[in-house]
């Protein structure tokens, strides 16, 4: 496992760049991750997605269904791909500091 510099901290990430220490996630970390995910600068819409994912994760320890995400944010999948070019699972979840979703996602 590698450590990389995010938001001024050394944070452990897995091999696809998902952070392994979710409790150390904060705004600056998210922005640095967004740079890697080609989602920088982050607009309000970016934050809406990230905050939703984050809150869901804190409650359920997992990523939400995409349908839930699109419904709660009001964005369709195409738009989410515009915000996060690598998509909701790899792009958005990474920026939101979630572990990588597994299983056909």
């Amino acid at each position: 496992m590698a450590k990389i510099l995010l938001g001024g901290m050394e944070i452990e990430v897995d091999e696809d760049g998902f952070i392994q220490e979710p409790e150390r996630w904060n705004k600056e970390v998210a922005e640095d991750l967004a740079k890697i995910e080609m989602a920088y600068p982050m607009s309000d819409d970016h934050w809406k997605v990230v905050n939703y994912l984050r809150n869901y994760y804190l409650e359920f320890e997992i990523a939400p269904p995409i349908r839930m995400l699109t419904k709660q944010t009001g964005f369709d999948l195409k738009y989410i791909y515009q915000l996060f070019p690598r998509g909701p699972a790899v792009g958005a979840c990474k920026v939101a500091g979630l572990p990588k979703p597994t299983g056909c996602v």
Partner: protein
Amino acid sequence: MVTEAKVKAVEGYEKTLERWLGNVTKEDVKKVLEMVGKIDKLPYPRLVKLYLDLCSYCGACAEECHIYKTYPKKEFNPAYRTSLLRSVYLRHFTLIGKTFRGLIGAKELDEKMLQEWFIRFYQCTMCRRCGVFCPFGVDNMALVRTGRVFISAALGKTTLDMGRGVDSHLSLGNASFMKEAVFKHTVKFWEEEIKEKKGWEVKVPIDKIGAEMYLIPPNTDFFHSLETMEGITAMFHAAKADWTMSSKIFDVVNYGVFYDDDVWEKIINMHIEEAKRLKCKILVVGECGHALKSLMMLGPSLLGAFPFKVKSVLEVTADYIKQGKIKLNKEANPEPVTYHDPCNAARMCGIIEEPRIILKVVCKDFREMVPNRDRNYCCGGGGGVVLETASHDYRVEVAGKMKVDQIKQTGAKIVATICANCKVELDHLITYHKLDVRWAGVHDLVLNALML
């Protein structure tokens, strides 16, 4: 044409695969070789032996492999891929191989060869299209899987995300680290969705002992294609079916199918045990290809007949349509729709006409892509390849390229399919190649068209 992007995509993934296998030692080689010597102990020894013996290296299969056609290099030739196993078998376990060696293509298993095995076997999408066209009936997929089984059984190595999925499966009963509370929360969400979209009060029966049908969808549908779950639920509701889901075993995927017999058996036993506990008459597999293969074909042939039937949800819906139990309105899906035959559903399990029966009554403009049915091309994500984040570029640039061209040719606006892996791959293909198309499960379209 082999573009620079393709070269980069392939090289990138090959490097990753090499890294995943890691350093191999002489000891590792010996362990794997021991497995090769025990071909007779495999659960399917006759065909492996035949396929090792019969290939004449005519090259017909290469002409039919979507990967070789997109990127004609030797290493992607299906017969080359399997020659890796064949040549080692010849060299170490046959007299003529020991005698004539390289002259007849026999090769020693060494560290380098083992690396080559790992890379080549995990690049194949196990779609079996080559097997359809071999004049001698040699099914390269069976050998590719066998090669993966050897490596997994001897060294415990597989690809990254597949391994993680299996870890999750063996500890939690599903491949996505999903707990019961999440499942129940998700169920509630899609019940509400149906209410909003259809105005129907629908409850998903959970853990109902003695229900006629026990539905197990692939877990992926919860995350990636919840509309499919809504469609299936609404369909059962409209048909007044007696069905249930389980709060424990709600994931039908079984990655063991792709690479390991022990894992396969452990996971399929979860499905069987839960079906027995629920005393269902029919285990209904949701929109999932490899799970159907596992439960419909491999399971009964190895573990003996089950005390329940196994059906695809497609068969159930198609039967309801034939019996007039559900009413559907074509006008709800006015856009042109095409259908992608998942390899595992079509070639392996013969779920070929059912989705067409359904699509023809739920959408106004249904178009076939060519080739189709049992001769379809793989989406590019089969054999567990789509599970890997790291395989993305390889999939969209090389393995799925034929599918992209096929979809374009139909001019359809929706490409429907019945496999969770295919849906993810189609999603990636459509986004990467900027197609003006969207993907859907067949039951997503059923949901739109259903009437009470």
